C-alpha cells in the first residue's frame, strides 16, 4: 500500500475523521481523554489512532506515563491537492459535456 493509499484509507473512515477533527479542535490529547469525549471505547480509539499514525496524520509524544496524540497537518495537503486537481478536471469536463450536448 502506498503512502497515498494509506492516507486515503485512514481518512475514508468517518470515525477516524471524527477523531482527527477532535484533535484539531482540542490540541494534543491522550487516548483516555479522547475516549471520555467520544462515543467509543479506549481500545477502539487506540486502533483508530494507530491507523492515523501509520498514515502520518498524527504524531505520538510521551508525557510522563501517557502518550498524547496531535495532528500532523502536512499529509492533509496531499489530499487537498488531489481533491483540487481531480475535482477541477471533472468540473472542466462536465462543463464541456453540457456545452457540447446543449449546443448540438
Amino acid at each position, binding site marked *: 500500500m502506498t503512502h497515498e493509499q494509506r492516507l486515503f484509507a485512514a481518512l475514508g473512515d468517518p470515525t477516524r475523521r471524527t477523531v482527527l*477533527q477532535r484533535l484539531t479542535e482540542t490540541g494534543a490529547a491522550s487516548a483516555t481523554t479522547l475516549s471520555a469525549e467520544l462515543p467509543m471505547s479506549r481500545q477502539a480509539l487506540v486502533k483508530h489512532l494507530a491507523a492515523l499514525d501509520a498514515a502520518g496524520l498524527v504524531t505520538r509524544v510521551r508525557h510522563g506515563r501517557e502518550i498524547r496524540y496531535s495532528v500532523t497537518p502536512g499529509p492533509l495537503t496531499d*489530499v487537498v491537492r488531489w481533491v483540487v486537481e481531480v475535482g477541477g478536471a471533472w468540473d472542466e469536463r462536465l462543463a464541456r*459535456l453540457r456545452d*457540447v*450536448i446543449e449546443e448540438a
Partner: protein
Amino acid sequence: MSRLPEPTIERSIHIDADAASVWEHLVVGELASLWMGGVMVIEPRTGGAVTLVPESDPDETLVGLVEEIVPGETLTWTWRASDRDPTQVTIAVSPARDGCLLTVTERIVEYQILEAPPLIQMPGEPWILRVCVAA
C-alpha cells in the same frame, strides 16, 4: 473549523437533454473525446479498455478497464496514469425534470499487479495491470 477533506470527488450537473443522448457521449469514444479533455477510447463492456490521452500532457495518459456497465444508467471504470495510484470513476445518468442528472465520483482504489496473462501494457513499464479491486 472547516470540515476535513473527503478522499472522494463527487460532482453532479443537470443537462438539458435526454438521458440516452448523454449516455452516448459517455460510451462512444468519438463523442467522449469532445469533452473529456483528450482522445478517449472506451470499449463499453465489462472488462473493456479505457484510455484517455490528455491534450494537455500525453505523458499523463490514463489507462484502465471498465468494471461495470448498466446500459443507459451507470458506467464504472478503474484507470491510472503511469506514476499515479489507480482511481475508480463511476458516472451515473438518471432522468430529471427538463433533462437528466449526471453524477460522477472518483476515488483511489487498491490494485493488484500480476505477471500474466497480459491485458494492458502500461507505457514505459515492464509489468501488467491485470486486475483492479476496489478498496
